[in-house]
C-alpha cells in the first residue's frame, strides 16, 4: 500500500460518489456510478484483495451499469433533484 495512491483514489471515489448523487441526468449518474465502482476496484487491487477486485470490475462496474442504463431507458431520463 502506497499511501499517496490510496489518498488520491479515495478522494476520487468520494468525488464520484457525490457526483453520482448530484447529477440531474440519470444516464450521467449511471456512468459516474460505474466510474465509482471501477475506482473502488482499483482500491481493492491495491489493498491485495484481487478476487474482490475482479468480481467488482465485472459485476459492479459492468453489470450494474448495464442494469441502470436499461432501467433508465425504460423510464424517464430527467430527475428533478
Amino acid at each position, binding site marked *: *500500500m502506497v*499511501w499517496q495512491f*490510496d*489518498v488520491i483514489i*479515495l478522494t476520487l*471515489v*468520494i468525488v464520484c*460518489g*457525490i457526483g*453520482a*448523487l448530484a447529477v440531474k441526468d*440519470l444516464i450521467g*449518474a*449511471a456512468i459516474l*456510478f460505474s466510474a*465509482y*465502482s471501477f475506482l*473502488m476496484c482499483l*482500491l*481493492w487491487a491495491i*489493498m*491485495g*484483495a*484481487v*478476487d*474482490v477486485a475482479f*468480481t*467488482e470490475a465485472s*459485476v*459492479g462496474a459492468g*453489470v*450494474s451499469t448495464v*442494469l*441502470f442504463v*436499461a*432501467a*433508465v431507458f*425504460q*423510464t*424517464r431520463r430527467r*430527475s*428533478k*433533484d
Partner: protein
Amino acid sequence: MEEITALLVSRYNYWAFIVLMMVGLYGMIAKNNLVKKIIGMNIFQTAIILFYVSIGAKKDATIPIIEHGHHGEEVVIKAVDYINPLPHVLMLTAIVVSVATLGVALALAIRVYRQYNTLEENEIKSQLSEE
C-alpha cells in the same frame, strides 16, 4: 495527544468509509428520485465492503496465495506475511448480493413508473393521496 492524532491520520481508509457511508445514507433519505435512491443504496453497500476489506489489509504483506504448496511437502508459513483472506471471501458474497438487490430494486422502480408514470417520490405520494 500526538499519538492519537497520528493513529487517526494513519487510518484514512476508515475516514473515507465513514464519509462514503454518510453520502449513501444521504442519497437514500434525502433524494426524491427512485433511481437516485438506488444509487445511494449501492454506495452504502460498497462503503461497507470497503470497511471489511480495510480490516483485512496489512502492511508489507502479499496476497494470500501459497506458492510452494503444490507438491505435498511441508512448508512453514508466517501469517504476518499474508493478507487476511477471510473478509475478502465474505465480501465476495456481499458484492453478488448487492447486484441481486440492485436488479430487484430497478425492476420495482420500473413497475412503479408504469403504474404512476413518474419516478419522483413526492409526486407518487400526491397521486396516492388523491385516490
